[in-house]
């Protein structure tokens, strides 16, 4: 495993330890890294909005 892949894996594992981060966000980043792609600010922001909307709707329901 390359150093980069190793660092990204450690990062994802550390994120998974934090319960406050929605798993969808972690999955989104992990799949991006697996596709050899870095996560762009705009994409992450979009994803965050979508997930927080879902969280809000869940709370309402």
């Amino acid at each position, binding site marked *: 495993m*390359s150093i980069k892949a190793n660092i990204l894996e450690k990062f994802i594992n*550390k994120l998974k330890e934090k319960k406050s981060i929605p798993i969808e966000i972690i999955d989104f980043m992990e799949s991006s890294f697996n596709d050899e792609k870095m996560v762009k600010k705009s994409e992450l*922001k979009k994803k965050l909005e979508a997930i927080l909307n879902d969280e809000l709707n869940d709370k309402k329901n």
Partner: protein
Amino acid sequence: MIKKINIQKFRGFVDSEIILDGRNLIIKGDNGTGKSTIVDALEYFFTNKIKHLTKGEKLSVKEYAPHVKYSPEDLKIDIEFKNGKKSTKTIKDKPIIPPRMEELFNTAREQKFILNRSELLEFINSSPSDRFKIIAKLIGLGDLEKQSKEFSKLSNEISKHLNLVEDSYNKILEKISKFLKTKATNTSDILEKLNSKLSKLSFPELKSIDDIEKYKEAHFKNVLLKTDYSKTFKDLENILTLSNSISINPKIYDLIIEFKILNIKLREIQHPIDLELYKFLESGLKLLKLRNPKQCPLCKQSINIYELISDLNNRLMKRKEYLEKLKELEKLKNNFKDLMEPLINNLTNLITNINQINELENKKEKFLSLKISVEKIMEIIPKNDKDYESIEMSLKKNEKELNKFLKELNLECNNMKKKLELTEKDKESYEVLNLLNNIQLEYENLKSKKIELLRIKRKYEIANLINNIFSEVLKEEINKIFESLDSEINRLYLFLHPNDLHENIKLEIDPNRRGSLFLKMDSFNCKSRDPRVLASEGHLDSLGICIFLSFVKKFNKTIPFIVLDDIITTIDANHREKLAKLLLTEFPEHQLIITTHDGLWFKQLIENLKALKLEHKWEILSIIDWDLSHGPEFSDYKDLWEKIQDYYKRGDSDVAGILTRRYLEWVLKKICLALKAEIEYKSDPKYTVKELFDSAYKRVNKLCKRIVDNEDFKNNLKEKFENLKSWTYLGNLLAHENPEIELISTNEIKNFSNLVHELFLCITCSECGNLLKYNREFSEIRCSKKKCKNLPVKLK
């Protein structure tokens, strides 16, 4: 490992193949013969880029790479690997990654495997942030640094948004605090402070701010009702104000008197005859004044002209007076209208206001009829005194009624007003109600802002956590990498510079800045200094090499090859020797591809690999010629002595002689260096054969006198020098394109070549072939290879 590289129509290469079969490569060539093209081809093949084109004014690969005589589509780079797999790169297509070689191709795209001369000092001279980028690229972390920036940008962006929303949330709180006249910090605080206020005013406690509407209905019903009448109250006040301003102007009565007087005056003046008659009279008067006749022009009777003129003047004067009075009458009528109109307007306004209040419906009718009556007065056209009297009477009647109605209206309005007026208790409640209304409104704003705030806080919490964790992991891992590297860099540097006072080289991440890296070393007992302060250019170059090689050694397990493109410039011969040993011994797992234009370095590498018996692992090539149509011409490397023999075999003794002269120069330099001969310092480091020979011979003689136990070595060495001494003139003859060379026989040249080679053999180890060296410390001449068991020649 690379087995074969084929380069077609790329830069100056038309179609060249280098077969390595997994072996390392040393390739020598003069400037412009295509060494770096091989490096560019490798970089282009694996990364689809050529890095040096991106520096300064950018140049596209499409512009740079294709051979000038061919179209870009003809460009092709084929690489065959030791495992038999192949791939091809063209200008359009990236190489197809062979199965199970993904890791190599992916890593080579990200990780640096080529080091060239221009990059050597980048590790040292760059700013800490640029150095971090370079090192990050070296270990393939470039993308991670970009990723770190993306996370940081997002976190900052959300943080700014959060601040804005927090500001507006706080402003609403401030507004509420202003209403409460005490600072409220949150929703429960607002309720607490509001309840404290309510309790002071003896109102019951409010359970939740959301219940304000119910609370208002329960405790402020009366005030709420009264507040509904607030409009009525205002209307009543308007009516009262208006009613106080309504009256019949007393001037109107004066005006009626004036009317009457004027009417009398008009009656007194003889009623005017028609207009034609007055025109006739005026014309007659003019005629009389003009002609002064004695008789009337109409009846022919005698006339008294003076009496007649006087009479006509009187009649015309009366007429004038009558007209003036008529004008006055008109003026009085206008005045009357002006005085009546405000009354009518005020009555209209009053009726409109009364109309707003149902309870005053009966009053409205009265004022309406009064208004109609007044308007009728205005319509009357008086003709005689009776008419004026009738107007005056109507007015007086209306005035009486008006006053009566106004009195009644005032009374009723004031009564109504009294009913609607707030008591002190009402006022107090009304204030509380206002407070509740304001807080209710702002609380709704606060609630929606709080939802927005919580949402952004959550977003920031996630983004910030992602950013922090990424930075921490990156920093932690990079620190680990650097810690493990420091010892490797120091070990390699010590290998190259064992006696120099530089140590403790460290790569340190700036703890206060993201993506920033310091390089420090202890020099001459000065701790943690920037290496540029106390190290020479050559030291800095070799430090750059050590940093690169340490990274390769530690982290480049995936890419099996290292390319060193012409890296030797400022490093002196002694240190090159050490670098050659380091490269040949420290990287047995890697395929090294070394290019150079430097013949000495080329030779040092070859001598070292021969000494280490590694020839079978190396492909040694020289580019001996290049032209645009054919590309580079390669030749296998042979050392000078082998080449000399080749030329003798081909019967070309002239070239063999010229090469022998170069060989002699090289051998003498080696002897001077090995035996530490004194050579006079020259700013131009070119020495003649005679200068080198004299120095070496002088030193040999001196050392020979000290040899005590090896007469054979001593006699052999002295003999070889003696033999050669009488032939050194040939060295000068063979130095240049000397026409006298033809006077020298082939045998003489051959003899000369053999003598030079015998001298060389004299100072090489009979056991391992390495050069012998004078060791001052132990007073001996011994093999330069430390582990060689050949006995040294002892000196006194």
